[in-house]
């Protein structure tokens, strides 16, 4: 992996984060492969998303349902809109999955503004990236909160 490759990966993750911050979930979803998934486990080192409870485990269909719910005029919990700011760091390439996808880990801090309250989420992300003609695509994004097992308040955005 060259410096140039790392730079390209970083730019891709920054772009993903900024789409979440804007938010532009339509464009954000387009960053995923057709079989792409988003996973936020509910325990540390959770081995799999189906046989243990998770906060979120969405494929593209669930992402679209969630997006439509977020912007629905009758979704009382999403009004007024929630704002967030992602900060990424420690971006590292970690080799490849068995399918040949790039494994990239990063640390994140997300500050979220909701109902007169500023909240903070932190943890690490693991992206599995596919190289497509148009650039990278996300096959899988895993969000490991530092406190996945805490009693959380409503979380109605993607981190």
């Amino acid at each position, binding site marked *: 992996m060259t410096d140039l490759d790392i730079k390209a990966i970083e730019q891709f993750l920054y772009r993903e984060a900024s789409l979440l911050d804007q938010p532009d979930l339509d464009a954000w979803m387009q960053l995923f492969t057709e079989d792409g998934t988003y996973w*936020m486990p*509910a*325990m540390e080192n959770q081995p799999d998303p*189906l*046989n*243990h*409870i*998770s*906060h*979120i*485990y969405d494929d593209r*269909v*669930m992402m*679209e*349902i*969630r*997006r*439509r*719910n977020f912007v*629905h*005029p*009758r*979704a*009382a*919990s999403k009004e007024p809109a929630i704002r967030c700011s992602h900060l990424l760091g420690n971006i590292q390439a970690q080799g490849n999955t068995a399918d040949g996808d790039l494994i990239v880990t990063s640390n994140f801090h997300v500050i979220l503004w909701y109902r007169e309250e500023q909240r903070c989420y932190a943890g690490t992300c693991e992206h599995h990236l596919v190289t497509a003609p148009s650039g990278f695509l996300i096959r899988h994004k895993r969000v490991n909160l530092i406190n996945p*097992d*805490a*009693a*959380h*308040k*409503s*979380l*109605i955005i993607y981190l």
Partner: protein
Amino acid sequence: MKNTISNEELAGLVEPARLHKRLYLDPDIFELEMERIWGQAWIFIGHESQVPATGDFFSTNITHKIPVVMIRDKEGQVHVLHNRCGHKGAKLVESRDGNVRGAFRCPYHGWSFRHDGTLLKIPNEKGYEGTGFDPSDSCNNMQPVAQVESYRGFVFATLSSTAPDLKTWLGGAVDCLDNLCDRAPEGEVEVAGGVLRYEHECNWKFILENLNDTMHPMVVHQSVVQAAEDYIASLPASAAKQRSEAEIIPPFGSSYEKFEDSGITGFPYGHHYDGGKTSIHADYTVLPAYHEAMVKAYGEERTREIYSFNTHNTLYYPSLTIKTAVQNIRVVRPIAVDRFVVETWSFRLKGAPEEMLQRTLLYSRLINSSAGMVGPDDLEVYRRAQEGLQSSASDWVEFHRQYGRDQQLPDRVIGGGTSDLDMRTQYKAWREYMTGEIAQ
């Protein structure tokens, strides 16, 4: 301070079809609720399957403050003990779960206690010689909670030594716990797949009121129902067919008529459920491999009978609510007048294919997660009520729907599915507990 509210005043806060906003807002009332409802009722602690081996423990609070620990001893018996050292009161365990190897050891002066709470050893004990201190006096033990009983693995405890036995207290509502367990081919369930904990910034009673409030789903959950229905309908039929969400989410938008038909049943001590003949969970696909295992275990007729009792939410007032047809439960853990935590636990039906557990976990994740598609919209309306009720515009909250039409049977009250029978049932119990009418 808390005894400044007389029983007369408390009784005046709950009328047959109205209650006073102080029930949600007044910290003194909350403290009294902890003492008189949570301190007298049977509170759900955990399930025996959470502590399968000797020394396994699960710790929680039985009221907003009182820490307890459920632990299995080497004879296999499950105890619920006060999580408090017999010496100077330090909590013995801090983790939510784990294993106590050999004996509890206090992190302060090193006193140790057996799994049943009895004092095992005091370091440097000779300092007590001739002081009149008696190490064999049971007051030095970790104290057991006044009464502990288990029903089909569900462990309840009460701080009251005079509370009726668990079976009496559960009354006719026990049918739902039975139905949950009977849905396992082996007739037993076990906790599986971990827990979700969800912080609610409002009074604990809002979630109990909401369980069988069937006038809210089509309003509160309209956005997600439309999002799911519209999008899944736009998918190619082959893709749409595979979406379990299509079975789980849209029924939240069921019509008033459908909810009315499901009925509500109330019991003494504040318990109630909606559904029975039908519920929003009634149309789930029956997995062929599961059906096969059920028929093998029970025979065709009994299997149909088990499926046909289909409830939505059952409340064992005040701490436990179960979904028999989904196999998950939610446990309410109050913290303050405007704060509580909900735990969602999922169950494996013993003898059923693993896909059943996966569907339960999918349900818990989609519906009950703090990042879910349904829970956050419910919490949103509780939170708005918590803030709106601060208003001086009115002191009262009403629950008149179908008032006067509830039908009293010997051991239960039945009424329409869109009635406020559930409210009348739980607030009758509230009044009885709070004013001492439930003799303890």
